[in-house]
């Protein structure tokens, strides 16, 4: 199996050479990508994969800011396909979302993407058709800045994380639809009941079981699709295959970490080394040293590290601790460093459900700090849910004064809604479930400070509040209790500046991606708020970002967990 993988990787490397962007032509650089479906073996799992130029991940595309690039994509499969350039600001018809921005790429057809690059940084591309992203259609997209990288480094590597399975995407949907806990191998049992009784007594344990039983939810629901079916890959290789990034001791190595997974949040660290975080979602940050960071599906982080030994393990454990991706930063091939054990599996709490956690005490480690209100617009406690649409002027928006707010609260008891967070929180300095108090300095959204001030100093003219909703039991997801197919577009005027506030009524993290426009995360850094393309919203959290609608067209706006998007958590944003 190792041999097969190695042979496969060699083939991939060979095709990679063939795709190096051409240059010197007056038409600007170009690349040619061919998409085909083929059975491949990765680690212990042999499965049908969707390959770009014969490799998984697809070849790295590398261009320069200011270039007009042409990317020719040929579909050699018997089904339609598409490629979306994630985070790259392109005209709507080049964005690659079938049915929205173009018609997709039919079997046998060749489509030429052509757009100018107005930005720099680490991005990626992936399919936006069916489950092809799960099946391997993804790769890195690097844009070199016209005037050099802001931070110096001697060497760089792409660290692309993904999840791989021999189950088809359609089978995974079937399994989730018929039994939503199909992949949950960490459920509560008689054993955990006994352990909880021993730890906290019978009364507290029973009270806790009753509280969850009343919600009809499981606190062990950390991830919908897990290591029960996934192997976690680093640059297309399993943890056992140990992908190796070569380096020299003492030099500055820039790691471009891209989460290309379909359903997996990773917690990334290199034991023994500080990670100097210099870029998030392609945009420069004021550098900051951490030990670890959580990366959601579709996010990217660039970190600079200085190796101090001949081998360091790059360790990326999944949020639900059901597995890990791993590679080695080493001075020569074949070296390895110790691989850490997985951290203990955390549990959801009543606070994650947006319940008043005081009523169900005994959940240490995930408690709301009293009076925490770092955001200008915090203090929006969601009251008793009311039905229907409402337009009202919200108070207390600090600098901007009262803003008109559009909000469609989901209805409790609706088919697509299994929970409405009654108590939300909006501070951004919590690293997320399973990370607080682990003894390591973990990056949070409060840490992200842009290197340069934002391009649009205007305050927002209005606020759009959207609720992230779901019904785990039926495996339905949506915004405001509605699936994609039940809603119309969210309309923005060209050049309008708006605040979008996401309220997570579910007890899972959602990485929410707005195509085509930047999402300027409103943390405490004012005009130095970070520009992101994908924003994680934690359970019961309320997160705001500003958007300048400076590119007309129809844009997709969705949760980047593949099966949440496919099963409804998606909207169209129409800029006109």
């Amino acid at each position, binding site marked *: 199996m190792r041999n097969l993988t190695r042979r496969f990787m060699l083939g991939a490397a060979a095709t990679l050479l063939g795709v190096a962007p051409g240059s010197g032509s007056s038409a600007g650089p170009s690349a040619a990508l061919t998409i085909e479906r083929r059975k491949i073996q990765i680690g212990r799992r042999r499965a049908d994969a969707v390959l770009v130029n014969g490799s998984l991940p697809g070849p790295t595309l590398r261009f320069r800011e200011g270039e007009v690039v042409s990317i020719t994509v040929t579909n050699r499969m018997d089904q339609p396909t598409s490629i979306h350039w994630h985070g790259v600001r392109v005209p709507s018809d080049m964005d690659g979302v079938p049915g929205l921005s173009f018609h997709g790429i039919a079997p046998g057809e060749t489509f030429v993407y052509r757009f100018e690059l107005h930005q720099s940084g680490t991005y990626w591309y992936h399919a936006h058709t069916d489950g092809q992203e799960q099946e391997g259609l993804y790769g890195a997209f690097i844009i070199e800045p016209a005037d050099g990288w802001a931070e110096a480094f001697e060497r760089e590597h792409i660290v692309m994380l993904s999840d791989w399975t021999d189950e088809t995407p359609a089978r995974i949907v079937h399994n989730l639809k018929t*039994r939503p806990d199909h992949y949950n191998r960490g459920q509560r049992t008689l054993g955990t009941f006994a352990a909880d009784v021993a730890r906290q007594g019978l009364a507290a344990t029973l009270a806790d079981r009753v509280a969850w039983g009343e919600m009809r939810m499981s606190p062990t629901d950390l991830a919908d699709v897990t290591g029960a079916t996934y192997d976690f890959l680093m640059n297309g290789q399993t943890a056992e295959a140990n992908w190796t990034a070569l380096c020299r001791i003492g030099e500055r190595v820039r790691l471009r970490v891209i989460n290309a997974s379909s359903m997996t949040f990773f917690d990334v660290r290199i034991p023994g080394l500080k990670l100097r975080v210099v870029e998030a979602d392609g945009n420069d940050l004021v550098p900051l040293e951490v030990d670890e960071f959580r990366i959601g599906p579709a996010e990217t982080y660039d970190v600079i590290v200085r190796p101090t030994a001949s081998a360091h393990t790059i360790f990326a454990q999944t949020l639900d601790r059901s597995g890990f991706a791993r590679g080695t930063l080493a001075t020569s091939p074949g070296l390895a460093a110790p691989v850490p054990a997985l951290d203990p599996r955390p549990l959801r709490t009543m606070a994650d459900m947006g319940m008043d956690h005081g009523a169900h005490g005994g959940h240490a480690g995930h408690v709301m700090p009293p009076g925490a209100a770092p955001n200008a617009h915090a203090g929006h406690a969601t009251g008793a849910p009311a039905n229907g649409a409402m337009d009202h002027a919200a108070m207390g928006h600090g600098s901007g004064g009262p803003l008109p707010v559009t909000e469609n609260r989901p209805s409790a008891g609706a088919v697509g809604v299994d929970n409405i967070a009654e108590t939300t929180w909006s501070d951004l300095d919590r690293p997320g479930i399973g990370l607080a108090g682990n003894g390591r300095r973990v990056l949070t959204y409060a840490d992200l400070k842009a290197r340069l001030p934002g391009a649009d100093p205007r305050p927002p003219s209005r606020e759009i509040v959207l609720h992230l909703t779901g019904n785990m039991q039926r495996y339905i997801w949506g915004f405001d209790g509605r699936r994609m197919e039940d809603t119309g577009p969210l309309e923005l005027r060209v050049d309008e500046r708006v605040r979008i506030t996401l309220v997570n009524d579910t007890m899972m993290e959602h990485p929410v991606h707005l195509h085509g426009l930047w999402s300027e995360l409103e943390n405490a850094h004012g005009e130095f708020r970070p520009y992101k393309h994908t924003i994680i919203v934690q359970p019961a959290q309320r997160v705001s970002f500003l958007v300048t609608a400076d590119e007309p067209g129809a844009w997709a706006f969705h949760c980047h967990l593949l099966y949440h998007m*496919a099963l409804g958590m998606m909207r169209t944003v129409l800029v006109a």
Partner: protein
Amino acid sequence: MTLRTIRVLLCLLALLAAPARAQTMAPHPAMDMEAPWNASAEIERLEGQVGAGRATVRLDGHAWIGTDEDRLWFKTDSRLGPSGAIEGRQELLWGHAASTFFDVLGGAHVDISRDVTRTWLAFGAQGMALHFIDVEAFAYAGDRGRFAGRLRLATDLAFTQDLVLQPFVEANAYSRSDLAGGTAAGLSDLEAGLLLRYEVTRGFAPYIGLAYEARYGDAARSARAEGEQAQRLRLLFGLRLAF
């Protein structure tokens, strides 16, 4: 009855085959505006039973095909005797998602017994109640003013990730006694038990179980007339299968 039996079997086969077809449909493309179709088939109990001098196979299962909101359901709880005769409950229902955790269903219900086949209109609800208790509650209206009701409650208690104990109780009640159909007025029969299954995979789980079965009134009399006990404790061995 034979024709009806064949029809019922064909229907079951068609629905069991449905998931295989549905799986070839991928989740809807990013912008497909139509709700995706899904399908599922599950045999909760496939069990051999020996008792009263005759061997039977019990098949208790369901299949559905449809969208998030609307599904066509087929349900069966059949006993196949050595002669190939099928007895038991067959239902073809339309189900609609009514709330977060419950569906309402309506359709046809056919009770096949050795001597008579009765057809009923069925209406009911099923879903997950508080504390993860699966509930099926149905009311039936038959010919000549007959009414009936069925209630089933079950839940899963995990011993380990693979070893699961399922306590369940199921009861049937009728407005009138029916000697030919083997049912009694009022509470007619009840089954309560514990099934302990080991999930080799999510779709393949052998189980052992202990069940108490009781028939009351005329149902008990007609059971005794056929040489069966009105109340008994059974040791069960079977398979739970999901497709």
